[in-house]
């Protein structure tokens, strides 16, 4: 094994990762607070009122970042589950377990805020369109993963069963993302995407990116603290 690859595996051990996780958690917690304050300031005070939707549009500053996080955290969770299955590293499974509750929370927030946005703009809290339904399936995937983990007493078997569920469920993420293109949904298409300039005012875009960074930092901080709990709980 080369020196370079040894460096990589150094932090694969829960004992060596434990202090690093605290440093990351503290740094990200501070950044999360700062980004939230900046994002709320821009989103609620600086950004102008939307010409069509009025003030109700301000919900997107939490709705869109939460929806991004709900999908992104699932992919990261499935990634660590896959790494755990492939290399049988305990820390990878712990990472997957640590991410699930936060991912489920952001999925619920995306659905909740979307519903409160839909009522004034679409005239309904809920429709069974492809985007909303696939996002609801994502919530059930998170719940299924957590329930499966909790229902199997043997830790190793619980991790492996959960990992398989998480990996199979990752199919749903591109379905959510492309649902607005593949099907004729009530949900609008993406205003921000990888291959074109955002179709919104610059301050609105800034507010959304700040809130996305805030949720990102929050998720890392919470996951790192949770992984520390996992490490401590599995020592005995």
């Amino acid at each position, binding site marked *: 094994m080369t020196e370079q690859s040894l460096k990589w595996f150094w932090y694969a051990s829960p004992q060596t990762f434990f202090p690093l996780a605290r440093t990351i958690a503290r740094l990200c917690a501070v950044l999360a607070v700062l980004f939230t304050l900046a994002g709320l300031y821009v989103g*609620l005070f600086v950004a102008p009122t939307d010409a069509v939707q*009025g003030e*109700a549009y301000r919900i997107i500053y939490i709705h869109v970042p939460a929806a991004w996080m709900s999908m992104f955290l699932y992919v990261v969770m499935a990634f660590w589950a896959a790494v755990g299955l492939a290399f049988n590293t305990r820390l990878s499974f712990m990472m997957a377990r640590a991410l699930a509750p936060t991912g489920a929370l952001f999925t619920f927030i995306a659905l909740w*805020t979307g519903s409160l*946005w839909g009522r004034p703009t679409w005239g309904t809290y809920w429709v069974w369109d492809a985007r909303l339904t696939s996002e609801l399936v994502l919530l059930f995937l998170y719940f299924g993963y957590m329930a499966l983990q909790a229902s199997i007493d043997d830790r190793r078997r619980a991790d492996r069963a959960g990992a398989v569920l998480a990996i199979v469920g990752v199919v749903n993420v591109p379905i959510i993302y492309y649902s607005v293109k593949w099907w004729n949904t009530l949900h609008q298409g993406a205003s921000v995407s990888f291959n074109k300039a955002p179709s919104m005012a610059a301050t609105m875009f800034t507010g959304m990116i700040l809130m996305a960074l805030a949720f990102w930092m929050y998720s890392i901080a919470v996951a790192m603290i949770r992984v520390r*709990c996992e490490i*401590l709980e599995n020592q005995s």
Partner: protein
Amino acid sequence: MSEFFAMGGYAFFVWGAYGVTFALLAVEVFLLMKRKRETKT
């Protein structure tokens, strides 16, 4: 100031979204801190 809280008539929807979001994040942090305390002892 009251105009700000009125949100152009959409106060229920806007503050309902923001309120529940930050309340849930606070609950998660609270539960996590509780778990952290319990694992240390």
